[in-house]
């Protein structure tokens, strides 16, 4: 349990009121979030406590600090402390203790010492128009900073929609030429792997899970064609939405505050972008406050914030383009028929048949009584 830099992390955590049990629980939650086997929780705990704290440099470009805020405001007990103890956050423009030249020096020192080993987190889009002059830090453009820092990093994690695909700054007419980290690296032919965690802001657990996966297994989680981890962005919001049965049954809220809206019907006709947005919001939820804590859960259509070409691009209340699930041509009825009662014709037939059968049986019984059998009259009847 002794870490290389001389700090016994477990003891340290206990001093801060985090028991070993709580710590393991946290690691297990992270493992589950990634869909890993339960045993991975212990492995993550081991990786986190025995290694030298991995250096993380955080580069902010055209951003609103929402992603950082989300991460810090996480109400998950001790998360903020854990994350600050688990990684060695050597540079972060919002959280740096020092500023100016001091901060710059810390960044350069860490880059020198941890060349090829540190994780670079990028937050915000990179302006490329006019040589990238629209965002400068310490006199350098974000573009050149990214080029410099990414080329020596082990991996780049682009947090938020801006860094992942351009986000809000890249919306038309895009005056600054806002571009995602991934595209900038491609432009500059830098081969460092990139993971995108889009969202505005993204769910902090999607980010933390990715970081811990990398620390534990020394490789990046499985990614989709847009560089997003599949464990979080593998399915459409529509697929896991709790209002999905309303969609399938054709029960829609037609405007805010109407009867259907108050009853929690599907928000598709209010412009919900769930059917074209890949994210795990309905399953992961936000703010650790329990059920319903996500946009659709609170009665607002999904905005598609994490999907390129949807959020910040298509008007909020335009209907989503359905990817593969289209509403049925005929909707099943809402009030089911509860059966039909007696009709005269039916009763007449039943009574007639029952009467005929009983009558025939009675006549047969009577005739059987006559000692002389054989021949004679009538019919018989079935059963």
């Amino acid at each position, binding site marked *: 349990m002794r870490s290389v830099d001389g700090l016994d992390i477990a003891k340290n955590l206990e001093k801060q009121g985090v028991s070993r049990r709580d710590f393991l629980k946290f690691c297990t939650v992270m493992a589950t979030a990634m869909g890993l086997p339960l045993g991975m929780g212990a492995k993550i705990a081991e990786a986190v406590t025995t290694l030298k704290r991995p250096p993380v440099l955080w580069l902010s470009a055209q951003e609103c600090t929402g992603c950082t805020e989300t991460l810090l405001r996480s109400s998950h007990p001790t998360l903020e402390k854990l994350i600050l103890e688990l990684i060695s956050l050597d540079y972060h423009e919002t959280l740096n203790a020092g500023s100016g030249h001091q901060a710059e020096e810390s960044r350069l020192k860490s880059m020198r010492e941890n060349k090829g080993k540190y994780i670079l987190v990028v937050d915000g889009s990179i302006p490329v128009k006019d040589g990238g002059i629209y965002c400068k830090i310490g006199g350098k453009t974000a573009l050149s900073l990214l080029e410099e820092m990414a080329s020596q990093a082990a991996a780049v994690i682009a947090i938020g929609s801006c860094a992942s695909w351009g986000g809000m700054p890249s919306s038309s007419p895009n005056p600054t030429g806002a571009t995602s980290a991934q595209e900038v690296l491609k432009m500059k032919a830098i081969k460092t792997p990139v993971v995108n965690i889009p969202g505005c802001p993204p769910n902090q657990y999607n980010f933390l899970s990715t970081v811990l996966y990398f620390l534990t297994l020394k490789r990046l989680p499985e990614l989709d064609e847009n560089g997003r981890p599949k464990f979080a962005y593998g399915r459409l919001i529509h697929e896991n939405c709790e209002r999905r049965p309303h969609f399938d049954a054709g029960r829609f809220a037609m405007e805010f505050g109407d009867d259907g809206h108050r009853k929690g019907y599907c928000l598709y006709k209010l412009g919900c972008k769930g059917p074209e947005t890949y994210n795990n919001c309905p399953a992961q939820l936000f703010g650790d406050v329990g059920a319903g804590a996500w946009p659709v859960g609170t009665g607002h259509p999904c905005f598609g914030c994490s999907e390129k070409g949807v959020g910040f691009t298509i008007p909020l209340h335009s209907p989503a383009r359905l990817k593969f699930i289209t509403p049925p041509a005929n909707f099943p009825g809402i009030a089911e028929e509860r*059966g039909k009662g007696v*009709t005269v*014709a039916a009763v007449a037939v039943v009574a007639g048949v029952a009467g005929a059968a009983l009558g025939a049986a009675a006549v047969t019984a009577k005739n*059987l009584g006559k000692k002389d059998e054989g021949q004679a009259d009538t019919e018989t009847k079935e059963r």
Partner: protein
Amino acid sequence: MTESKPLGGKIITLPFLVCSFIAAIAGFLLIKRFIFGLGSVTNLSDGYPWGIWIAYDVVVGTAFACGGYAMALLVYVFNKGEYHQLVRPALLASMFGYTLAGVSIFFDVGRYWQAYNLILPRYSQLYSVMFEVALCVTTYIIVLWIEFTPTFLKKFNKETLRRRLNRTLFIFIALGVLLPTMHQSSLGLLVYIAGQKVSPLWQTGFILLLFLISAITMGFSIVIFESIVSARALKREMEIPVLSKLAGYIPPLLGIYLAVRFWDLVGREKLGLAFTGDLKANMFIIENLLYIIPTILLLSPSKRSNPRWLFVSAVSMLLAGAVYRFNVFLIGFDPGPGWQYFPSFSEVVITLGLISIEIIGYMIFVKRLPVLPSLSQA
């Protein structure tokens, strides 16, 4: 053993024409059902997914068709060879009864075009009662036709084939006893799993035993009933001595049935429900009176050998078994407030059509195939 031979005579008679007419109307309504769906002809709903096609055609119908089972049990398992002459006509009725029950399940299955999935192993749900019943009934229909095959072979003079089949027939006879024992009790289990939807008057853990015993008694009754009715209809001498011996088995069986039935109701403290005066209570009383009457009648040896009382007892028992099954499946079944069911005109006519086809088939078979014993020299 008595020789069997065809009765001969005209096929087209007045009953034949009447039955054909009903069957034709039923056929027309069935075309409507298959084109426009169940809702166009039935009164079935989500609350009452099973109507008279299941309650009568399948549950009561297969119990009426238990003659073959009851006789096989008696003749081959308990080795009472003297009843052998009753086996073949009983088997014929069973064969028609079960085949038409199978057919009417097909009418009742909403998505009938997917029914074949049942027999695909990868879709089989081995823990389902419905699966067991479906598989048992399907297999038993095939077994019944095989059991009856020697009669066809005899008719068409395929003697070597018949002898070869007779050597392996014991397997099918054994199956013919095993399969009904399984599914006649499982039919009760179908209701048991409906839980509290079924009135406590009928919902009990003993329902499997009750279904099985009542199916066997119905099997004996239908043999007596059919023997008397066909003797009268076809102007043959009655087989009273053998029938009255057969009827001797019924009082003990019904005694066990009634003892279990009431011991269970008293044990669960639900007997009071029988006297509340509502439809369920009254149907319960009718059902059990119909059981008690033949039990008492058949206890007396003199009544047992009187064709009238034999006939009355058989009819009473058949009605008792039918009412019991209707009570369990429809009258005692309450899916919740607001639901209602009464069969539609078309549903009833289709059921009558099936019965008509059964009668037509029976008449043709006994007239053209060696089914009935040739004991009447007249």
